[in-house]
């Protein structure tokens, strides 16, 4: 379980470029939920994800992952609980290292690293098995450099690496956005398959409202650094993109009314 409470963060505080990215963002994701996050540019989606991962520390508010307060911990000290796949297919893996070396890095995520050989024989069975589930033939190319793989293949391996060891939450940051439509569909299928099979708790940021409704068990929309609506279960079933837009307009309309009430 992951719970963010009243997160606030302002970039460039005290400068003319002051930009409040998170304005009291609160969200609790329960064990086994697969939440899709949508929102326009500047809504705070990426900032929220970076705050959860530890890449950015928030000004105020608390982040609790599996009953541990991680608010002030840097990325590498949260990595045992938080797994992540980046938007850039090249960012999640090291191109100069072989496939097996990348996987060996991931299998020790958040654990102590010693002086024993990194690529151990005992890992090989697991590496081959999980790679063969991708059906890309990578299980026979364990020694190949990661840089020889295509963007889609690398994103698939990143996803595999993020799910190689257990985590409290899997963060997916528009991880299909930089891929061509066919590869994006493949990676998205793979994502839902892995999340369902391993019963992972996941948070997926996406630009596509359609995608946000098609996958996952719950959808959250962010606007101006806050959650504007949050739907799950029966309310979410059968919902279409236009319903989502309507919902969004309604929410925005309400907030305008609130302002006019205040001013009036």
């Amino acid at each position, binding site marked *: 379980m992951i719970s963010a409470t009243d997160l606030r963060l302002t970039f460039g505080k005290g400068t003319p470029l002051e930009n409040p990215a998170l304005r009291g963002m609160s969200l609790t994701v329960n064990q086994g939920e697969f939440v899709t996050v949508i929102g326009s540019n500047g809504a705070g989606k990426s900032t929220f994800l970076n705050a959860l*991962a*530890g*890449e950015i520390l928030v000004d105020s508010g608390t982040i609790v992952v599996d009953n541990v307060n991680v608010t002030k911990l*840097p*990325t*590498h*000290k949260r*990595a*045992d609980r938080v*797994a*992540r796949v*980046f938007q850039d297919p090249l*960012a*999640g*893996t*090291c*191109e*100069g*290292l072989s496939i097996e*070396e990348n996987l*060996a*890095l*991931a299998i*020790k*995520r*958040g*654990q102590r*690293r*010693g*002086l*024993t*050989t*990194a*690529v151990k024989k005992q890992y090989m069975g697991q590496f081959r098995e999980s790679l063969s589930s991708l059906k890309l033939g990578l299980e026979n190319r364990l020694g190949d450099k990661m840089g020889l793989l295509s963007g889609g293949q690398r994103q698939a391996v990143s996803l595999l*690496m993020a799910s190689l060891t257990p985590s409290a939450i899997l963060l997916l940051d528009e991880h299909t956005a930089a891929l061509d439509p066919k590869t994006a569909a493949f990676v998205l299928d793979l994502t839902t398959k892995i999340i369902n099979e391993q019963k992972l708790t996941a948070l997926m940021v996406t630009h596509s409202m359609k995608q946000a409704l098609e996958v996952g068990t719950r959808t959250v929309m962010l606007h101006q650094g806050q959650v504007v609506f949050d739907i799950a279960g029966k309310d979410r079933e059968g919902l279409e993109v236009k319903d989502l837009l309507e919902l969004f307009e309604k929410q925005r309309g309400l907030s305008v009314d609130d302002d006019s009430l205040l001013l009036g």
Partner: protein
Amino acid sequence: MLSEIAFYGAIETGLIYGLVAFGIYLSFRVLDFPDLTVDGSFPLGAAVAAVLIMAGWNPWLATGCAVLAGMAAGAVTAILNVKLNILNLLASILTMIALYSVNLRVMGRPNIALLGEDTVLTPWYSLDLAYHQVPVLLFAIVIVIALILLWRFMKSETGLAMRATGANPRMARAQGIATGSMIILGVALSNGLVGLAGALFAQSQGAADVTMGVGVIVIGLASLIGGEAVISPTTVIRALIACVVGAIIYRLAIAFALNADFIGLKAQDLNLITAVLVTLAIVLPGIRSSVVNKLTRNKA
């Protein structure tokens, strides 16, 4: 053209600079950390070893202390970068400048002669070998041990984490790697190797001098880049072998250039030759591939 003694001398110095090239491979290639500290940590290693040998210490123990001193110097550079957010290149220049004073303090004077003192080489002279072959044998053993240890380290969990830190720090952090600590460890190791090289160099040359570090970084880079041009560094072991091969080739090239009277070069031209060689080593592979491209295009 090249006398036997000059030939062995070049190999001997080449083996020592192979250690420097290892260090530069660690910082420049593995960590992507342009570290100029080596110009200070090389004479630091020499100074520490020379002072301790003069004080009657066991020469191997003195050499070990030189390694530790080099590591401390590297750690200072890395901490300036990681903890105080000073640009890596600038941090290393600051340490390098500071080390000039430190080295003078360590030695108490600009140079120390080790003539007649027991060095790591002394026991080896009782072997049935020519005088100029002894250092080559000993330093070859040292560099092979260093190469194997370094190779095993790079293949270890920590070594792999260090390689990931240099190649993709964001990914490394997401995998739970403390990238700052990795940079400190890596730059310290790198300068430890350079300190070792300085200590061995002082013992083979019979003196430590505060100016002996000038240009070590360029010679190390020349060795690294030259070696990479000869042996493409596709794996860690190939990259490490390339360091040693590059350092020896560089030294032989220098020895030939200085010994070939018809060229008319003298010892004082060394730094100019080095700069020209490094430039050629960087530029030539590009020219070669463009020539190859033109040829293949014509064929097609």
